[in-house]
């Protein structure tokens, strides 16, 4: 089975990247593939709980991250160094991702057949 990694490295709402990458992940999930969602750098902001983009008249796509597992995307990794650098802690986040060190994430990406990052 082909292994696909979808890498989120940008904060939400400042660009469409997170939303559009999420759509790629959900579509790929309809095919028979081993898919991982990986959050690195500013991408960790994608998983902040209690987002209120409606104040900016933007659609909140973060609830969809909670549904990734339902779509069969069960490997969800979050770079723990990125979280620490931003003075953020796990309780501030949606409870979906596994805190993982940078080296493990690098190995995971190396083992992927395909990688998407926008």
């Amino acid at each position: 089975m082909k292994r696909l990694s979808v890498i989120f490295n940008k904060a939400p709402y400042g660009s469409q990247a997170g939303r559009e990458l999420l759509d790629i992940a959900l579509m790929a999930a309809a095919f028979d593939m081993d898919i991982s969602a990986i959050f690195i750098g500013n991408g960790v902001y994608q998983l902040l709980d209690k987002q209120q983009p409606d104040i900016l008249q933007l659609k909140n796509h973060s609830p969809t991250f909670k549904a990734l597992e339902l779509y069969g995307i069960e490997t969800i990794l979050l770079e723990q160094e990125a979280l620490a650098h931003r003075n953020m802690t796990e309780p501030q986040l949606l409870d979906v991702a596994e805190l993982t060190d940078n080296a493990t994430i690098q190995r995971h990406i190396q083992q992927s057949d395909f990688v998407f990052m926008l």
Partner: protein
Amino acid sequence: MATFSLLVTASPHSSQGQYSALEFTKALLQQGHTLKRIFFYGDGVLVASRLNCPPSDEINLTKSWAKLAIEHDFELTVCVTAALKRGITNAAEADRNALTGDNLDPAYEISGLGQLTEAMLESDRLITFG
């Protein structure tokens, strides 16, 4: 020899990604590789408007892609959601969404994200130009 597909998300008007993708495509075809599909997503879809009209002494990416695709028989596919959001539409989508006109260049086709996944699975390499 390998089969390639490209994902192009770069804006044709404000970054170099589209031009790099075009040159990369020419190079891989010259070397005898096969190209299955160019999939345009995000701001990359803006290249599919036949109304793009850069100054005459600048490269016209819309026409450059179209010419290459016709010569070498590969697909130029535009994501429907990304395209409609940015005002790129064919006649059928314009009709469906009650829009007053259409602007998709005839060398391009509008389709869904499934075409990106399919291209990935049927190619040896998928290269992103953002």
